[in-house]
């Protein structure tokens, strides 16, 4: 092409090198590049396959899930009185409503999490296990609460309503891309794949078009009316405004906590013995409290450590280094058995509150170091620019360095939160029945379940994984929304 162009004209840039696409090409390049590699691939593949087959076989046929399904409430809320189960349920409803509102406000950043939680709750609600119809209905109601929260804030636009239209368009584009790939040049296996996916795509595209044409939602008058009403309602409530959203969050979290704990003297809300709050609920409460409270405390400690006032600095450094030097399990033990020695004999501090405070203090020391690192990464020029504009020292910190520092450490904060959530299972040391401890007690306390340890711990691992994975998922979304590494 460049030869035909006039000598003065800039030749067009060369095309990118051809991609060695296709499954076969990738396999050959990465797994079967030499005899040794091929042998390794085969052996490792066989081992993995064998492991997978045994695992799936056990999961589907050998495992006896009765230990989980007949005791579900124990794992979820511990010894919480069965007559009061509606209270944690209602608390969960509040949380779901709040999450729905957040989803409506933040869109993409919260959507995946909200939808994921909705699906999980729906599945759990429909699974066969020993649950009263009322509680099951309440559980299913959570999904509705998510949707309701979304509708209270989101700005729906009619053009976006028919999901199927977008799905169809995406499938269509994919089919077109595959079609452009010239399958006759591909190796036979890849050619087969392409043909097969083409067929599938053609079917899917046709189906998508049919659904779109059939639904054609935005053309129906009642849909238009409903959407207009929703928009008016969302605009009137304006829950999406940061201050209202924050207020709503605080109010609903406090309401949820009060519901769970109960209020003295209010009929129907008899206080629950804190020793009876257990299972996953306990892990979640401790983690939530620890994460929420250790943020401000950690920031304060980090700022204190950067302070020019020697006493403040010394106290903060001392606290941070002391706490970081001791394992959490030791701190928990000390808080229960050694700290009370220093109290007057008539003061009894609840194990739940003690462990919540200990976990918060423990986490805040680590959080402080994260925050300090994040703020140290903010360039000195930022401070100079702020000072040159006449901002005071505290304004510079609050408006310029701290926001940038915190944005730098979102991944670290989430990592910290994940490990905090997992660490909450250490409260068994002071006799609290968290999810893991509940599993142990269930196995050892019931003759018929003595052989079902695997099932219990697989279930517990899955529960922990779902929550920690959700956290890191949300974190990635927030990072993307805030553009870490881009700006």
């Amino acid at each position, binding site marked *: 092409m460049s030869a035909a162009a006039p000598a003065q004209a800039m030749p067009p840039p060369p095309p990118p090198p051809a991609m060695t696409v296709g499954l076969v090409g990738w396999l050959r390049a990465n797994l079967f590049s030499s005899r040794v590699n091929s042998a390794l691939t085969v052996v490792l593949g066989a081992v993995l396959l064998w492991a997978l087959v045994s695992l799936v076989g056990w999961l589907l046929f050998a495992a006896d899930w009765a230990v989980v399904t007949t005791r579900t409430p124990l794992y979820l809320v511990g010894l919480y009185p069965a007559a009061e189960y509606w209270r944690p349920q209602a608390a969960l409803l509040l949380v779901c409503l709040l999450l729905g509102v957040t989803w409506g406000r933040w869109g993409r950043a919260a959507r995946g999490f909200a939808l994921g939680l909705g699906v999980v709750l729906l599945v759990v609600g429909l699974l066969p296990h020993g649950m009263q119809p009322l509680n099951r209905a309440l559980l299913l109601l959570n999904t509705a609460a998510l949707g309701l929260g979304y509708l209270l804030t989101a700005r729906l636009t009619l053009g976006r309503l028919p999901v199927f239209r977008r799905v169809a368009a995406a499938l269509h584009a994919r089919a077109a891309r595959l079609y452009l790939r010239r399958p006759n040049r591909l190796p036979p296996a890849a050619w087969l794949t392409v043909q097969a996916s083409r067929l599938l795509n053609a079917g899917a595209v046709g189906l998508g078009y049919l659904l779109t044409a059939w639904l054609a939602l935005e053309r129906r008058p009642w849909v238009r009316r409903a959407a207009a009403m929703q928009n008016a309602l969302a605009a009137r409530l304006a829950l999406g405004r940061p201050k209202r959203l924050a207020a709503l969050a605080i109010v609903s979290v406090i309401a949820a906590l009060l519901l769970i704990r109960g209020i003295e003297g209010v009929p129907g809300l008899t206080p629950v013995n804190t020793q009876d709050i257990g299972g996953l609920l306990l892990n979640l409460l401790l983690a939530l409290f620890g994460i929420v409270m250790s943020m401000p405390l950690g920031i304060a400690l980090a700022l204190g450590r950067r302070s020019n006032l020697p006493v403040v600095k010394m106290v903060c450094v001392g606290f941070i280094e002391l706490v970081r030097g001791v394992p959490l399990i030791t701190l928990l033990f000390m808080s229960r058995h050694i700290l009370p020695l220093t109290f007057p004999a008539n003061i009894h501090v609840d194990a739940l509150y003690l462990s919540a405070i200990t976990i918060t203090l423990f986490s805040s020391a680590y959080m402080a170091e994260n925050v300090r690192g994040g703020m140290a990464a903010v360039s000195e020029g930022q401070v100079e*620019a702020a000072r040159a*504009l006449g901002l005071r020292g505290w304004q510079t910190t609050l408006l310029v360095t701290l926001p940038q520092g915190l944005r730098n450490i979102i991944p670290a904060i989430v990592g910290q939160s994940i490990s905090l959530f997992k660490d909450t299972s250490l409260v068994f040391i002071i006799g609290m029945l968290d999810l893991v401890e509940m599993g142990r007690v269930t196995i050892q306390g019931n003759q018929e379940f003595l052989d079902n340890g695997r099932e219990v711990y697989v279930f517990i691992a899955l529960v922990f994984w779902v929550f920690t994975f959700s956290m890191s998922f949300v974190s990635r979304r927030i990072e993307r929304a805030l553009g870490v590494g881009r700006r």
Partner: protein
Amino acid sequence: MAASNQSNGPGAQALDMDAVTRLPLEQRDDIIVCEHVHKWFGDFCAVRDVSMRVKRGEVVVIFGPSGSGKSTFIRMINRLEEHQTGAIVVDGIEMTNDVRNLDAIRREVGMVFQQFNLFPHMTVLNNITLAPQRVRHVPRQEAEAAARQLLERVGIPEQADKYPAELSGGQQQRVAIARALAMQPQIMLFDEPTSALDPEMIKEVLDAMRELAATGMTMLCVTHEMGFAREVADRMAFFDEGMLVEIGSPGQMFSNPKEERTRMFLDQIL
């Protein structure tokens, strides 16, 4: 105390400037007075016995080899660096450790940095309105209107809602100029404003500075853009080894510098 004597209202200030700029330079008052200023970093004497007076509305270009103390010197004018001996008086306010004096001076002195130092977590508009809102307590809408006007003035009104990282270097530096101007300073300091820019972007920043100089702003510019100096500067100051070696009009500096060191340096860079 000294701060209360200053005219803070934008209207009063504008009137004041008009009257002043009609006067010839010699008859105007000194807005910056430095007497025998020293500054050490450890044992190293970065600024040595510098005395300089700058008239209201004057443009002074400061140049010299790297490490000659010129940046340190202008950073002392708004106390990003502290001077250790000598005296600096800015617009009648003596630079001391008194926080009120310092706040008053920083409100009067805007600064533009080599590395722009825009706040990356804020939009262009928020970068500009932050200080007026937080320091001068201008209402948000008023501050935003002023910010949009300033962006218009530096030629990038359409970038108001972008983030700094989405702009080119030249655009970022123009935002930085607008940000400093939003505080309605009497004096603007420029610390090598074009040194971090690609060649094709230098002109747009210099144009903004030219326009600013034409409005009668007092400017101290550390720069090696000698074309700009020849055209815009009222005086040029040559720094070497922490000392103010020579100060004079651009014509005299370029054609007939008094000091041998000035001549050698100019020969090297021209």
